């Protein structure tokens, strides 16, 4: 973990997003270092996708975004579109959940990838086709040269997601943001795509932000994990530590609610109640009404995300560094 050793690649500070006057994101702080793999996990509506769509200026116009998003010190929020176009695809690429609808149905795949190559690598003509073919081969698309002339509907979901990854790699980005990249795919195909993402990251040295509702997917691909709840980050720390002994009661609850795949069966421990709607959050900690460790103070203040152990933070007044954590020397 090289968090504090160099300036972060991307630094998000106090990022808020409002939709029609309702706050969806309540001030997110997050730094991504060069080459690291960060998983962002949370349930639907927690703001995990909105954070990155806002950072890249991809939200619809009715969204009000404020705060700061810096790429190597350069502010991205509120800059002219032309500046963002230089960043998107070239410095930070993004892929999405449903590859079939994320690709344009009436344009050949080779051209869709070629567009990115022309934009970011200044290639033209035959060079584009050759490079697109190389990318297709890199991401494991069989019969690559024929697939360049295919349309999205002629490929399976897994192959289309490979095309999306090839397109994302076209600009040699420093960071790839993958928003639920395997949610629409079957289990065996999900394994292929996660494997490919890990492989690509190892070969290119780019950083990866993987957004998913699936704790297992995050656990398999990330060095560091951020847990989000109701538009706030509630825990952030090394993947191993967070999954072994989460500090925040919500993170603990998520893990306890997950059926095990081996060992003895136990009754699941669901989190009671439901996520509060964005327009109607409780006054204090948003999780307090569902929290087994709630104390009266939880209803009054919104707890800040604070480091409990170096490199490991939680937004909970009841959370302290776990007994185990000191011994394990987190982040070593």
């Amino acid at each position, binding site marked *: 973990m090289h968090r504090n050793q160099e300036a972060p690649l991307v630094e998000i500070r106090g990022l808020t997003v409002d939709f029609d006057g309702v706050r969806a994101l309540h001030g997110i702080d997050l730094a991504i270092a060069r080459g690291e793999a960060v998983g962002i996990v949370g349930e639907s509506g927690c703001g995990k996708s909105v954070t990155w769509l806002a950072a890249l200026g991809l939200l619809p116009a009715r969204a009000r975004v404020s705060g700061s998003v810096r790429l190597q010190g350069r502010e991205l929020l509120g800059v002219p579109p032309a500046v963002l176009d230089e960043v998107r695809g070239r410095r930070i690429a993004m892929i999405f959940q449903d590859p079939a609808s994320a690709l344009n149905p009436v344009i050949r795949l080779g051209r869709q990838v070629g567009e990115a190559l022309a934009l970011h690598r200044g290639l033209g003509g035959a060079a584009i086709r050759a490079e697109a073919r190389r990318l297709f081969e890199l991401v494991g698309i069989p019969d690559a040269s024929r697939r360049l002339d295919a349309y999205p509907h002629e490929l399976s979901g897994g192959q289309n997601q490979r095309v999306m990854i090839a397109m994302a790699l076209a600009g040699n980005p420093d960071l790839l943001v993958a928003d639920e990249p395997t949610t629409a795919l079957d289990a065996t195909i999900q394994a292929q795509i996660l494997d490919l993402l890990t492989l690509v990251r190892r070969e290119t040295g780019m950083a990866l932000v993987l957004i998913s509702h699936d704790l297992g997917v995050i656990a398999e691909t990330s060095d560091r994990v951020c847990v989000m709840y109701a538009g706030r980050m509630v825990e952030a720390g090394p993947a191993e530590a967070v999954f072994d002994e989460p500090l925040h009661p919500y993170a603990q609850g998520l893990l*306890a609610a*997950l059926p095990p*795949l081996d060992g003895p069966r136990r009754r*699941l421990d*669901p989190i009671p109640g439901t*996520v509060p709607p964005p327009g109607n959050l409780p006054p204090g900690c948003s999780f307090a009404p569902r929290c087994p460790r709630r104390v009266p103070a939880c209803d009054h203040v919104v707890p800040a995300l604070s480091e409990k152990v170096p490199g490991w933070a939680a937004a909970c007044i009841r959370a302290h560094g776990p007994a185990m954590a000191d011994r394990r020397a987190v982040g070593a």
Partner: protein
Amino acid sequence: MTAPLLEADALVRLYSTRRGLFGRPTTVQAVDGVSLAIEKGRTLGLVGESGSGKSTTGRLVLGLERPDGGRVRYRGVDLPAPGSRDWRRLRARMQMVFQDPLGALDRRLPIALQVREPLDVHGVGSASERAARTAELLAAVGLGVHQGQRYPHELSGGQRQRAVIARALATGPDLLVCDEPVSALDVSIQAQVVNLLVDLQAQFGLGMLFISHDLKVVRQVSHRVAVMYLGRIVEEGEADAVFAAPAHPYTAALVSASPHPARRGRPRIILAGDPPNPAARPAGCAFHPRCPVAASVCRVESPALLPLPGGRHVACHLAQDGAQPLRAAV
């Protein structure tokens, strides 16, 4: 052992599809000789990827679709023709829960009325008895009286699925077919509904067919589990045993590909190739093009589902001698 609640024998379902505007129709074998049995108070989990035929199997079992071959027996008697009076009467005993509760509920009616509807339709008891039974059903799924007065859109996804389950239970069924009942729900809510289904089974002695792509959830609720691939069952057995020590290479890959925080860092079996296309079923064992241990026999001969020691059934040439082919290979 008594006769199973429901028995399906060599079910076959064919679909005719046309690809594109100019394509010719082709016949797809969606379900190809599936046999299964569901016992009272027990759950059979049915897992598989898209195109495996698991949902079609669920509909065949309930008689919502007519099989092109094979038969379904409920308590030893053949299922009457779909749509007939006998079938409708029987349907009160067999209910289905789908993935999307919002689609299964009527947006214009409060939840309690919808839970009560089957009681009115089947003329169960007096009006006051039906009201009492409705409250009882809502309570059984963890919904309060005030929630019963709400409309579907006023409830959360988890609460809606509870309402759907309450309605399914209204006629006192003894068989429940659940098709991806928790897949659309968030993790924390998933656990609530999974626990509810387990509790209801214990309370009412329901037999369940639980269809899902999520192995974790299937293992949590199932006594036995059947794994489907391209319309056929390739492995069947005790749920814990199948997941702990898969005998079929496909099951092994599926288990290994199932991500779980407790299993991070373990080596995974990554299958090559795309999910299979039911319209172009490979010769021999349908799994052989993706199978890491396929032998020459697998390319020509389709393996039968044969018993292994320990009450397991496997359709794999290489598993028949009792070995676990993929384990040896990894």
